[in-house]
C-alpha cells in the first residue's frame, strides 16, 4: 500500500532554534497514526508545517500527499485538499448555533444568501454521524467541552475530510467523554478517514493507534506498529532514558492527624439552591500524601478552593481543624496563616501573573516575607527566588525571566515555589501534573516525596488514577460532591476506585 502522506526530511528553523530537524513521517491510508513526544518536542510545529500555517518554502524537506507534492500557502489550501486540523484550544464561537459554527467560513449559501433549510438538514446528518443528539439551533456555549469537541469533528466532516489531525483532543475531557471520542475515532477509521492523533495519554494511544511515531527534540526517534507498542517503550523513546520507575520510591511515615475537615458543605456561588459540596469529611496526617480521586466536575476543585479562604461558593458550613484546634479560613490570608496552601489546576488563569518575572511570582503570596514595613528588600527577594530555582530545578537563564516564556513543567514549579514560600503545613495540589511532559512529571513527584519527608502534608487531586495510585498513602474517592469511599494504599486499584464512583452514582440517583 502506498502511503497517503509522506513527510520526508522536514526541517524548520526559527531564529536561534531548530524546531524540527530532519523529521520523517509516513501515514498509510485509513490508519490512525499517533504522534508522541514531550512538550516542546516539535509535534505541533510538524502539524503546522503540514497544514500550511508555515507556508511552503519556509521549511526544508518534502511533503508527498496523495501521490503529489503538497505546497500549501495557508490553511485554506490544506483544507481544500482534505487535511483538517483540530487544535487543542477549540475554535468555536460560543454565541453562535451549532449549525452556524459547523459551516462557519464554508456556509451553505448561494450568492451570499444562506440556505438555512439545507444547512439545518446537513447539520442534522453530521450530528448523527458524530453521535450527538442536539438541535442544530442550540448555541455552542450551552454544550460541555466534550460535546464541543464532537462539534469540531463534525465541522471537519462537513469539509470532506480525508486526513483528520487531532491535537491532544482529550486533554480537557472527562473519562467518559474521552471514551466516546476515541470510539468515534475508530468509527471514522472504519469509514475510511485517515487520522493523526497527538496525545500525552499513553493508554488512549495504545487503544486507538495503529502505529506510533515518537518525536524527541525536533527529530523523529522511532515508528512502531501496534503489536510493538508498550507504554514503557513509548516513554523510553520520548524521554530518551529508561524509566523503570515512573514514581519515586517512598516509604510512607505518617504522623498524627494534622488537618481535619468535618461536615463541610458549600453551595454554588450564583445558584444558591445548588449544593456543590455535600457533607464532606476527610483528614490528612503529618507527612502523608492523600489523594482525592473522582471524575472531572465532581467538586474536587470546588472543595479545595472553598477550604482555601472560601475562594469558591457561598454558605460554607462545617469545621476545619489544624492540630486539633478549629481554624478560621474565611479569607485567603487567614487560610495561609493557618498553614494551608492551594496550588491551582489552572496555572495560567489562577496561578501566575504571566507577564511578570519568576521572582515576582514566587514572592507574590508572601511579600511580607521579603519586606520591612511595606518596603521590599529586592536583594532578599532575589535570594529567595534563586533558592527555589535551585531547590526545584526550575530551568531558566535567570529568575528575572518572564514566566510566560517557561514550559508547563517549569511554570508549575514556579507556582509550587510561590506556595512553599508561605511555609505551609498542608499543600493542596490540584492536578499538579496536568499538561506537563513525562520527564517534568517525575520531577514534580520527586518534589512531592521530598516535601512529605520534610513532614509536610499533601492533598493531591488528580484525574489520572495511575498517579494517585503511584503517589498516595490513602485515596478518598469523590462523586457528585460527596466522599464516596476511602482506600488505603495497599488495597487501592483503578478498578476499586471506578467501582466506588459508579456505586456512588447509583446512590445519588
Amino acid at each position, binding site marked *: 500500500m502506498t502511503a497517503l502522506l509522506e513527510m520526508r526530511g522536514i526541517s524548520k528553523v*526559527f*531564529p*536561534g*532554534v531548530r524546531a524540527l530537524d530532519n523529521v520523517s513521517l509516513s501515514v498509510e491510508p485509513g490508519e490512525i497514526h499517533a504522534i508522541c513526544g514531550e512538550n516542546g518536542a516539535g509535534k505541533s510545529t510538524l502539524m503546522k508545517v503540514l497544514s500550511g500555517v508555515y507556508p511552503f518554502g519556509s521549511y526544508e524537506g518534502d511533503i508527498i500527499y496523495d501521490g503529489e507534492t503538497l505546497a500549501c500557502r495557508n490553511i485554506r489550501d490544506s483544507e481544500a485538499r482534505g487535511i483538517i486540523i483540530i487544535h487543542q484550544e477549540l475554535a468555536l464561537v460560543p454565541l453562535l448555533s451549532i449549525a452556524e459554527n459547523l459551516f462557519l467560513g464554508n456556509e451553505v449559501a448561494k450568492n451570499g444568501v444562506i440556505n438555512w433549510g439545507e444547512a439545518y438538514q446537513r447539520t442534522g446528518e453530521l450530528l448523527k454521524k458524530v453521535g450527538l443528539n442536539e438541535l442544530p439551533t442550540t448555541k455552542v456555549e450551552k454544550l460541555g467541552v466534550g460535546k464541543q469537541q464532537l462539534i469540531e469533528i463534525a465541522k471537519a466532516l462537513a469539509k470532506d475530510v480525508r486526513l483528520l489531525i487531532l491535537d491532544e483532543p482529550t486533554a480537557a475531557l472527562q473519562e467518559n467523554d474521552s471514551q466516546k471520542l476515541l470510539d468515534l475515532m475508530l468509527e471514522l477509521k472504519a469509514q475510511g478517514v485517515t487520522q493523526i492523533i497527538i496525545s500525552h495519554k499513553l493508554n488512549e494511544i495504545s487503544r486507538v493507534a495503529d502505529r506510533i511515531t515518537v518525536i524527541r527534540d525536533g527529530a523523529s526517534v522511532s515508528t512502531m506498529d501496534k503489536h510493538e507498542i508498550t507504554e514503557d517503550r513509548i516513554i523510553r523513546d520520548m524521554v530518551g532514558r529508561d524509566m523503570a520507575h515512573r514514581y519515586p520510591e517512598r516509604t510512607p511515615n505518617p504522623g498524627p492527624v494534622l488537618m481535619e475537615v468535618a461536615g463541610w458543605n458549600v453551595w454554588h456561588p450564583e445558584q444558591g439552591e445548588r449544593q456543590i459540596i455535600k457533607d464532606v469529611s476527610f483528614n490528612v496526617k503529618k507527612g502523608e500524601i492523600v489523594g482525592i480521586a473522582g471524575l472531572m466536575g465532581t467538586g474536587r476543585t470546588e472543595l479545595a478552593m472553598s477550604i*482555601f*479562604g472560601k*475562594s469558591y461558593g457561598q454558605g460554607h458550613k462545617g469545621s476545619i481543624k489544624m492540630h486539633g484546634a478549629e481554624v478560621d479560613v474565611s*479569607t*485567603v*490570608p487567614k487560610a*495561609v496563616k493557618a498553614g494551608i496552601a*492551594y496550588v*491551582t489546576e489552572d496555572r495560567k*488563569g*489562577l*496561578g*501566575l*501573573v*504571566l*507577564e*511578570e*518575572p519568576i521572582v*515576582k511570582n514566587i514572592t*507574590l*503570596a508572601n*511579600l*511580607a516575607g521579603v*519586606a520591612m514595613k*511595606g*518596603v*521590599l528588600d*529586592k*536583594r532578599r527577594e*532575589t535570594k529567595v527566588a*534563586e533558592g527555589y530555582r535551585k531547590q526545584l530545578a526550575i530551568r531558566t*537563564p*535567570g*529568575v*528575572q*525571566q*518572564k514566566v510566560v*516564556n517557561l514550559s508547563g513543567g517549569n511554570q508549575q514549579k514556579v507556582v509550587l515555589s*510561590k506556595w512553599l514560600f508561605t511555609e505551609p503545613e498542608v499543600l493542596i495540589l490540584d492536578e499538579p501534573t496536568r499538561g506537563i511532559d513525562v520527564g517534568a512529571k517525575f520531577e514534580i513527584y520527586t518534589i512531592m516525596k521530598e516535601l512529605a519527608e520534610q513532614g509536610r502534608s499533601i492533598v493531591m487531586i488528580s484525574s489520572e488514577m495511575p498517579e494517585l495510585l503511584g503517589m498516595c498513602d490513602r485515596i478518598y474517592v469523590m462523586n457528585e460532591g460527596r466522599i464516596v469511599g476511602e482506600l488505603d494504599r495497599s488495597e487501592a486499584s483503578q478498578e476499586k476506585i471506578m467501582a466506588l464512583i459508579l456505586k456512588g452514582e447509583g446512590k445519588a440517583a
Partner: protein
Amino acid sequence: MAQDKKSSALGDRLRENGMLLALVAIVVLFSALLGYQGKTFLQPQNITNIFLQNGHVIILALGMLLVIVAGHIDLSVGSVAAFTGAVAAYLTVNLGLPFYVVIPLTLLVGGCIGAVQGYWVAFWRIPSFIVTLAGMMVFRGATMWMLGGQNIGPFPKEFQAISSGFLPDLTGIGQPHGLTVILVLLAIGAQFWLGFRARARDAEFGMEAEPMALFMGRTLLIAAATAFVGYQLAYLKGLPNVLVVLIVLTVLYAFFTENTTMGRRIYAVGGNEKAAKLSGINSDRLVFACFVNMGVLAALAGMMVTARLNSATPKAGTGFELDAIASVFIGGASMTGGSGKIVGVVIGALIMGVMNMGMSIMGIGIDYQQMIKGLVLLAAVIFDVYNKAK
C-alpha cells in the same frame, strides 16, 4: 527563540532608553527648526514654562498610571480638576480662607470624589469607563453650577505661588540662584550614585547587565540635561515650586511602584486579578485606593491650573484626561493593565509638553498641533506593539 527570551529584561530597558532618545530628538528638532526661524528654543523662560504649563499633566499622569496598571481608566480627571479648582477658588476668594487651609481641604474633596468613583468600580464591579464617564459629565456640570457660569478670581499672592512661585534662595547669593545650584549638583550626584548602585545590584542578582557604554551614555546625557536646565534656571529665578513638587512626586511614586509591597500588588492585580486574589491580595481595596489617589492628584492639578490662570473657570481642565491617558500610553503602559513605569510616564508627558510648546512657538495652528499629537500617540503605541510582536 531562546535568545529573544533571555533579553526580555534588557529589551524593556532599551525601550526606556528609546523613549529618552525620542524626547532628546524632539528637543533637538525644535531647537533646529526654531533656530532656523531665528528663535531660541532652549532659553530659561521656555524651560521654566514647559514645567509650569505641563505640571498638571505630569501629576495627573502619575495617578493615571496606577489606575491603568490596575486595569482601569479614569475619564473624569479633567472635570474633577476643574471642580476642585472651583472649590479652591470659592474657599479662597468667597470665604477668604488662607492657603494652608484651602490646599488640604481641596485635596480632601478630590480624595472623596475619587473614593465615590472607586467605590462603584472596586466593590460593585461597575466598569471604570462607565463610572468615570458619568463622573466626567457630573463634575463638569458641578463646576458650572458652583461657578454660576462666571469666573472666580483673582487670588492672593500666596495661593498663586503654588504655580508661579519660585524656591527662595536661602544662600543669599542671588545671581546665580545659590540654592538651585546646590540642588542641581546634588541631583546629578544622586543620578550617578543610584545608577552605579543599581548596576552593582543587578550584577549581584546575576541579571544581564546593560552594556557599560549605554549606561554611561544615558547617565551622562541625563546629567548634562540636568546641568543645562539647572544652569538656565539658576540665571532666571531659580527652581519653580511646580518643578520641585513634580520631582518630589515622581521620586515618591517611582519608589512606591517599584519598591513597596502595595505597589507590587497593584501590578499583580492588573496582570492577573484572579491569580492575585488567590495569592491573598485584596484587589478590591487596591483598586479603590488607586481611585482615591487619582482624586487627590486631580485636586492638586486643579489647584495648580487655577492658580496659574489666577481664576477658576467653567471650561478649565477640558481634555486633561486625554493628555494624561496619552502620556501614560506614550510612556509604555499596557492597555490591559499590569505594566508601565513612572519614569516612562513622565517622559511621555514631557514629550507631549515639549511638542505643545515647540509647535506653539513656531506658530503652528492648534488644528495641526492636535493632528500631530494624535499621530505621535499612535506611532508610540504601534512601535510598542511591533517591538513586543518581534
